[in-house]
């Protein structure tokens, strides 16, 4: 059975939200951005902060520019398909100045997966956002060049969504030629 089916079965659990200890990076975020509504969770290695998507440009710009946070390094940017809840974009940040790190997440609705780009903050986000767009269909507003990076142009589907199945094993060459003519 496909991965999508299995994860809907009983036994699929969500992790409980554990508030981070006092003095962690979540408190610093609260001090720097007091008016942003966010949920902080102590993950296995980092603190995970979930912000609403309209606050992403402000949070990211402040995270880089504010000297108390100084997140000058974008480690990774990826998408996760959370099925009914929507699509999630995850940012992993690190600061060379203070040697602290944080994970920032935002949830997007499946029918309108748009979020502001962070390429204006970190150059390294250019290719990460292109890849997330072609794999999940998440649109990054303001990205200078959202062409597909790893896949061909005009593919018509987003491979990493849970709804997209795995390929079947083709038994003969005719099957391949038939599928190739269809595309």
């Amino acid at each position, binding site marked *: 059975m496909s991965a999508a089916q299995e994860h809907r079965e009983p036994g699929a659990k969500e992790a409980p939200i554990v508030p981070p200890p006092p003095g962690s990076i979540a408190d610093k975020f609260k001090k720097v951005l007091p008016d942003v509504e966010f949920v902080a969770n102590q993950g296995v290695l980092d603190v995970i902060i979930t912000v609403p998507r309209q606050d992403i440009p402000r949070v990211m710009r402040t995270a880089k520019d504010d000297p108390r946070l100084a997140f000058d390094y974008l480690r990774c940017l990826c998408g996760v398909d959370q099925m009914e809840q929507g699509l999630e974009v995850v940012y992993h940040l690190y600061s060379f100045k203070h040697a602290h790190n944080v994970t920032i997440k935002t949830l997007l609705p499946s029918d309108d997966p748009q979020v502001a780009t962070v390429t204006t903050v970190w150059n390294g986000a250019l290719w990460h956002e292109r890849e997330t767009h072609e794999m999940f269909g998440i649109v990054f507003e303001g990205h200078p060049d959202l062409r597909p990076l790893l*896949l*061909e142009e005009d593919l018509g589907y987003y491979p990493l969504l849970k709804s997209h199945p*795995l*390929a*079947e*094993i*083709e038994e003969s*060459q005719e099957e391949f030629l038939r599928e190739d003519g269809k595309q």
Partner: protein
Amino acid sequence: MADETRAEEVHVVRDDPAIAISDVVPPELRRRIKELSPVELHPGQGKALYRQILPGVLQVPADAIIALARKSSLWPLTFGLACCAIEMIATHMARHDLDRFGILPWPSPRQADVMVVSGTVTKKMAPAVKLLYEQMPSPKWVIAMGACATNGGPYTRYDRVLQGVDKIIPVDVYVAGCPPRPEALMDAYLQLRKKIMEDRSKIGR
């Protein structure tokens, strides 16, 4: 006396109908002519007539000698796609030397003889592979190295992966393994040499 020619002194027997075999072959050998077996490929054939007349000359059919030349100097296109490329490089290196078989990696497809498809062929890369194959002049052969080139390998269930390179180009030798050992690739080249020799009658057609 000077006109008498002995068998040992004959150097060249030209194709001159005026000179008959009986003029140059001494009488005791003439008897043995009837017992001689037909000329075969192996140069160690001691009884053949031509060995008596022309020592040091090999007489073989043309297709055999052309096949021998082709198999002894296979120049593969340097076409490393993925992980199998590392084992292909290792096979060319000093420990499992491939140069002793006359195999010299050559970057341009226009002068290459064999294409070793080492790694996964994706559907984005497939047109380039086909173009490279068509750029190679005949005679050309293809070795599909590794599980990915044979049938998609561990990545066969992903829809951007071509399930085997034989879907777009004809393959002569398949090598199993992920990645195949250098000895396996060497064995593939030896099998290809055997195949070239066995298929020698198709040369020119």
